[in-house]
């Protein structure tokens, strides 16, 4: 199988952006019932009385949607080998039913692997914005990618 993007195709400063991805109240409640059943994620009435003043999406669902947008943006067409982790996850603003999210992904740094000549890592920043252009979530993560040609 050949891919569109290998490690060599990522360079610091590259910016990729998605179109919008909407989230319904039903989707918020369905996700939260399974993974994060706090009252302000699953119960409209209790959420109204909470500090958030209404139902909000689990931050993990926003992270999941961010991942989905990354997949659709380039990851599924890339020689991805997974990720060791992310840093500085910030849930900056609540995501509410009907919000439309989009992703801006910026490459920060690329590194050849010292131990594996066939792969390299790419550090990138993901920023998720709502339909008002407000930042709702950001994080900085590392992805591992196969190289087009092995390093020496």
């Amino acid at each position, binding site marked *: 199988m050949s891919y569109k993007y290998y490690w060599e195709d990522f360079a610091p400063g590259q910016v990729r952006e998605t179109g919008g991805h909407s989230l319904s109240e039903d989707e918020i409640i369905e996700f939260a019932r399974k993974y*994060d059943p*706090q009252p302000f994620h699953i119960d409209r009435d209790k959420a109204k009385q909470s500090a958030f003043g209404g139902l909000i999406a689990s931050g993990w669902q926003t992270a*999941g949607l961010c991942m989905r947008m990354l997949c659709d943006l380039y*990851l599924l067409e890339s020689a991805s080998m*997974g990720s060791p982790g992310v*840093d500085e996850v*910030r849930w900056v603003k609540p995501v509410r039913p009907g919000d439309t999210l989009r992703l801006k992904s910026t490459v920060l740094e690329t590194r050849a692997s010292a131990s594996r000549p066939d792969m390299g890592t790419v550090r990138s920043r993901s920023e998720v914005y709502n339909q008002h252009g407000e930042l709702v979530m950001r994080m900085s993560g590392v992805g591992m990618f196969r190289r087009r040609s092995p390093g020496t």
Partner: protein
Amino acid sequence: MAIKYYWEDFTPGWVIETPTRTLSEQDIVRFAREYDPQIFHTDAEAARATPFGGLIASGWQTCGITMRLMCDGYLLETSCVGSPGLEELRWLKPVRPGDTLRLRSTVLESTPSGKQPNRGTVLFRWDTLNQNDEIVLSMRGRQLFLRRAPAPPEQDSPKA
């Protein structure tokens, strides 16, 4: 549900281990189709040819399961009012179909809110372990909790 734990109850060194949850192949594929459709998460056959040697759960699903373990273990009995974020998140080992996970939460640091006298922040370490006691996910992050009793006003602040 009655609140059992407030901000004051989370002091450094507080540690709790939750009951377990087991993840099926169907759970893994269903989550991944929606949120992380990379082939090593969605296609057991194709996953065999990848470096992972078989189907593995999306790391974000492991985060979700960790959150659920936390909710069922103790969080729904707390005054938690959300989280500003995580400092660090590491997927240390793949999670595979049939794995049974549990969460160990440890309080690292506790800080009263500077702005809101009825709240405080707690920095946790969250380790998710599998049935072989291997840590599969390790995170450091903060959560906000309401206080049992508001912070006393500072000495030098004028009385209303």
